[in-house]
């Protein structure tokens, strides 16, 4: 079963206005070729769900530089002054979610749950407009699940079926997002024959992965 697809063809499926989950933390574990191709094809009005927007010129920061993003759901934008500038200018809507809440909202979306009950954010501006729920005398904030049309996943290795492994701190949001999008596009650093990744080492099973970005064959 071949899942490889050319980079340009994978990105071409994405309509303007789509919602994208993009793995990574400060650019580490963010798929570089998918980001560059999205900029090259000039996708517009994107909603991006991610931990952060890294820095100008790096990772998701490149989508911000190219003004392709209309709405962001993130935990942190402090490292990217351009994101802050576009937000303050009214060109970019930013929803800030505490990082542990953000990842659980994505997990809830991918695991078929109706929401997350957490004490993080209670009594702060994060609570505004949200429902609270009392469980056995303790109050919790109800945070709603997140899903996306597409997920951009950065993996260390994939096998031909699309089983994925991640490495060190480049794992971060990737395997959780791979559960929470309708179409999962993975960009592995290398694609190895099926069987090289032992079943116990698989971090994201192939059934979740729709497309693997193929390597560019070097001539000569």
């Amino acid at each position, binding site marked *: 079963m071949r899942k490889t697809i050319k980079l340009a063809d994978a990105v071409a499926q994405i309509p303007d206005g789509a919602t994208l989950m993009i793995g990574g*933390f*400060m*650019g*580490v*574990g963010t798929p570089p070729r998918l980001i560059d191709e999205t900029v090259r094809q000039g996708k517009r009005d994107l909603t991006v769900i991610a*931990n*952060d927007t*890294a820095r100008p010129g790096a990772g998701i920061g490149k989508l911000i530089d190219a003004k392709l993003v209309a709405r962001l759901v*993130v*935990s*942190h*934008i*402090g*490292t990217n002054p351009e994101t*802050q500038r576009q*937000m303050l200018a009214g060109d970019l809507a930013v929803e*800030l979610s*505490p*990082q*542990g*809440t953000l*990842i*659980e909202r994505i*997990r809830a979306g991918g695991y078929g749950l109706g929401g997350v009950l*957490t*004490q*993080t*954010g*209670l*009594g*702060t*501006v*994060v609570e505004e407009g949200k429902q609270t729920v009392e469980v056995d005398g303790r109050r919790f904030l109800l945070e709603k699940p997140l899903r996306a049309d597409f997920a951009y996943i950065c993996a*260390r290795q994939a096998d031909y079926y699309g089983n994925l492994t*991640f*490495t*060190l*701190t*480049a*794992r*971060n*949001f*990737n*395997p*959780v997002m791979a559960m929470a999008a309708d179409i999962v596009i993975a960009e592995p650093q290398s694609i190895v024959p099926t069987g090289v990744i032992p079943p116990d080492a698989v971090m994201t099973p192939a059934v979740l992965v729709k497309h693997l970005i193929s390597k560019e064959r070097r001539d000569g």
Partner: protein
Amino acid sequence: MDEKVLIAKRVALELKHGDLVNLGIGLPTQVAAYLPEDIEVFFQSENGVVGMLALPEEGLEAEDLTDAGGRPIGALPGAATFDSAMSFGLIRGGHLDLTVLGGLQVDAHGRLANWMVPGRMVPGMGGAMDLVSGAKRVVVAMTHTQKGEPKIVRECTLPLTSTRPVSLIVTELAVIAPSPRGLELRERAPGVSVEAIVSATGAELIVPETVPEMPIGW
């Protein structure tokens, strides 16, 4: 002694053998450098590692092994890596013994504000709200004043990070412990008088008869 070094040295005394510890970006990161030699702790970085080592040897930086600020780190024998859901499960689920965070304000209720200044700085809360809500102990490491203005105040005027009181405040002047009775002055920095601490503090302090100096002799 540089005031940040003094704060880092005093905070380091709060770390206990076997603790799982998360250090915030900036001043809190310096705490790792002053860990007493006879204790072993595990440092967590919320992007997905326990057992991080502050700096790798030159030439051994791995682009896929970084701290929460995106800087290269190392990993100790026994380190483990995981996804963000587990990382924040460790934080919220009562598995994290101690977090050390910077602060913009702490008020008389022990509540911390450290994630935004409306109209001026909106970086986002990142992991700070989860850390203050979930860690067993929360130590705030910050300078006592900012441009002469007290950072310890009656009521926070900046947006709160959590309504849960922090465990301890360590500054270059004092160690202060929030309690249901108010802010208790526990220690003063070497050579600093109680009067100097009180006048630099914007909230009432509970001052015991004797206030010992911080036990940092080096």
